[in-house]
């Protein structure tokens, strides 16, 4: 519903605000699905930080945007075909909450059974992220750091600091 509103909006400020609300609704959805860690991240990053960053980017670029209502029939067709294909492929997925689904047969049982003895951390999400997949998390932190370097280079904040000193 919120997503439909976003598509129909022509004012960027309202789109940003609705984007925040959309993230908050997704966070609630994640809580319903018992994924509290993901919900936490979605609420903090999606609803909080990205809204603020969008607003500050909006403050830089200003209100000069030229949006004309045009109908892109090829685009609509592509989206419809893609959506129909995705929906058709869900028919092959295992039933919702099925304990025999392939995703529950791979490494998940091992984590659930052995992680407390091996890592000693009650929150299995933390033990998987920080211990079993520590290398992945190192990569994620590096990506975040690289993003900072890219933003600073693009916005010229590094050069500005050198001029002052």
């Amino acid at each position, binding site marked *: 519903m919120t997503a439909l509103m976003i598509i129909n909006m022509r004012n960027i400020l309202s789109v940003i605000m609705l984007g925040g609300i959309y993230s908050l609704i997704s966070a609630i959805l994640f809580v319903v699905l018992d994924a509290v860690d993901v919900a936490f991240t979605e609420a903090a990053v999606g609803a909080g930080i990205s809204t603020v960053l969008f607003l500050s980017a909006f403050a830089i670029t200003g209100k000069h945007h030229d949006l004309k209502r045009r109908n892109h029939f090829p685009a609509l067709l592509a989206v419809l075909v893609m959506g129909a294909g995705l929906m058709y492929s869900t028919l092959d997925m295992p039933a919702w909450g099925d304990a025999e689904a392939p995703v529950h047969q791979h490494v998940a049982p091992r984590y659930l059974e052995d992680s407390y003895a091996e890592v000693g951390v009650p929150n299995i*999400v933390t033990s998987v992220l920080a211990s079993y997949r520590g290398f992945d998390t190192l990569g994620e932190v590096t990506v975040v750091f690289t993003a900072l370097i890219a*933003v*600073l280079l693009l916005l010229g904040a590094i050069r500005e600091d050198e001029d002052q000193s």
Partner: protein
Amino acid sequence: MKKNPILRETSHVLIPVILLFALYVQFHGDYGPGGGFQAGVIFASGIILYVLLHGIKKTEKIISLQTTKLLAALGLLIYCAVGVAGMLLGGLFLEYNVLAADPVAGQHWGILFIELGVGITVASVILAVFYAFAKFEK
């Protein structure tokens, strides 16, 4: 900020609580939901709230763009240092079992330090990106 007494006073009550909650999420991530990433975001959002209310110049006296850049690198360095420490103590890169006498205690130390590194990097990167946007002049 003299015009908005309600906003100012509410923020004075809220910001310490937000920062404290960030630290709670950081160090309680082993037991409840959360961890370094979420804690960093919450910590940065507390400081961003301060920027929104008091302006960027006043905030930069407390924590400058230069500091956030250094802290972002420091967090990543802590993470890598934990990995290298495991190697020096005879294990593999990022193997925590060798960090203490007991493997489980070693895992605790490893997770604590890498989550600290993640938290520092994420908080300072978000703050630095926000500074870069806020200070940008056309």
